[in-house]
């Protein structure tokens, strides 16, 4: 009797899981398998056939440009991640902890999101008149008299890509951290003060550890988006900065499916390692 009930419960479990499982297989697992498969196909100049070969993989690792793009992607990702954290954490600290009124905190968070009401490309391109040789920043600095000749490195360089990405993605760092900070019981901070801890001690021993899950979630958001980036580098680097995402775009554009797949697989593996690494820092299931 109980075995029959157990069997029926098992059947129900499967039925409830089925839609999700089917969805994930159709739209996540199958496409990834397909990309992995295509990365081993044989590419000729104008066609592609399914004869398996390692040629595309060899080409990738033999090409200085491609491997260089891999390192550029990793370097830019680390720089942007660090900057979004350094700029985002204090902002989140203010919104999530210092602001006492929940209404004000919500208003401030919404203000952070307002730039998203315009299109992504416009937000990226808006940096050009800011950073250009005759852009706002150079004009102001010249008028103030701080510089004689315009700073050319501001636009169409790695710096402009970093500035653009940091500005666009910092809000994804602020949100989760502010959320975690907002959940900290104020009495805990008062208890720490009462036990004789000054602000620095309270921050490093209480506030920062308790906000760590937010930092990890924010870092995952930023990482996933920055590692797959191609638009910001395309629009602000003047083709000088090539990320893995840019390579995929050009390869797909010239119908080089096999090479595009190789880069796609490498990017997916890189993302997997990064996300898994962040998840090791905190047990998100326990914290959220």
């Amino acid at each position, binding site marked *: 009797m109980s075995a029959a009930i157990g069997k029926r419960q098992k059947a129900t479990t499967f039925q409830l899981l089925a839609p999700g499982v089917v969805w994930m297989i159709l739209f996540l697992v199958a496409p990834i398998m397909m990309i992995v498969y295509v990365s081993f196909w044989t590419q000729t100049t104008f066609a592609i056939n399914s004869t398996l070969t390692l040629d595309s993989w060899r080409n990738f690792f033999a090409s200085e440009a491609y491997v260089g793009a891999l390192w550029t992607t990793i370097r830019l990702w680390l720089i942007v991640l660090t900057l979004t954290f350094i700029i985002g954490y204090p902002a989140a600290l203010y919104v999530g902890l210092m602001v006492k009124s929940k209404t004000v905190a919500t208003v401030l968070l919404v203000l952070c999101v307002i730039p998203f009401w315009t299109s992504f490309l416009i937000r990226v391109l808006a940096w050009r008149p800011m950073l250009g040789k005759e852009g706002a920043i150079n004009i102001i600095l010249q008028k103030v008299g701080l510089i004689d000749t315009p700073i050319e490195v501001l636009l169409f360089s790695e710096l402009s890509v970093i500035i653009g990405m940091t500005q666009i993605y910092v809000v994804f760092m602020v949100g989760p951290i502010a959320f975690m900070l907002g959940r900290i019981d104020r*009495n805990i901070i*008062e208890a*720490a003060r*009462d036990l*004789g*801890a*000054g602000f620095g001690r309270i921050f490093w021993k209480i506030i920062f550890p*308790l906000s760590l899950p937010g930092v990890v979630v924010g870092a995952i958001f930023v990482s996933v988006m920055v590692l797959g980036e191609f638009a910001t580098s395309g629009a602000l680097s003047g083709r000088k900065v090539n990320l893995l995402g840019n390579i995929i775009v050009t390869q797909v554009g010239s119908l080089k499916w096999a090479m595009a797949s190789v880069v796609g697989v490498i990017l997916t593996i890189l993302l997997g390692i990064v996300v898994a690494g962040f998840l090791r820092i905190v047990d998100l299931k326990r914290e959220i």
Partner: protein
Amino acid sequence: MTQSDPIFRLEGVTRRYGNLTALNGIDFVAEDNSYIALLGPSGSGKTSLLRVIAGFEAPDTGRIWFQGRDITDLPAHERGIGFVFQNFALFPHLTIFENVAFGLRNGAIKVPDAEIIDRVRASIDMVGLAGLEDRNPDQISGGQKQRVALARSLVMQPKLVLLDEPLGALDANLRERMQTELRTIRERLDVTFLHVTGSETEALAMGDRVAVLDAGRIVQYDTPDAIYDRPIISDVALFLNRFNLFEGTLKDGRFHGPFGAAPVSSVRANDTDVYAIRYDRTRIFDADSSELPGPALPVRYLASEYLGSSIIFLFETADHKTVEVDHHLSLGEPRNLSVGQNYILSWDPAQAIVFGKEAAQ
């Protein structure tokens, strides 16, 4: 320090939130090495007072003295006053041991590691939690959290510990056990506890002295029996929940109330004329009884509550006011009363407490 030296002193402490005056010019002197219960209804300003003493909030006016030193402008983390929060406020990411060690590790004074271990162990032992050092706060019960919060404060060897409704979050059984334990722990440590509570039984049971807070003022500060027997104003009597209170008029040495006119020997100053008689001093007589000890209050019997050691009889007066009579069973078997029947309540007028406007003039 001798028993009578004050541990802390408040001078005209006032705290306002917008239009609301939470603390209204409080003057207070607390003896060293004592258990002080601070009793007040919700909204009376008890928590505000505690937070001002701890330094989490600054008073708008007034000074706070602690161990002979003016600490009004000293930040909370330099005051050395313990605080036990109602919701315990344990650090959720630290073990019990590290929770208790937090103040020693992160305070202004560097404490050597060996001493930290000794003191934390001793403190955890004292509250009876030995063996749980490595657990996390979410792995222990409410009562155990309470003990950790207490150990965390006491390990700093404060001279004053503020407890904000420390038993409020515990169930009734545990509450009684913690009451005794808090008292024993305090007596062992030569420390003053200021225990805020909204429960009159808790305040009377625990405090060496009880301060009654009402609308931002300390209206009475005395021993529990003095508060119980001689509430200074009718609000205190009402809050103690042990008195039948009657409104009426005080005139020419007699109080005119629903029980007729009763002779009055002494009157306490009050905003209104109120006649108070304790539940356990009120006695029940048949409706036609002629041997009454004092005033006669005609009532109708409603119901009774059995409390183990005594029975509470509930009556209703002609104007639908509930009157209680507490009959202690050691005084003999209670009377058999029938519901809906009329009776007369009476008492010895010498045992009544009368509050009146007249005395205030």
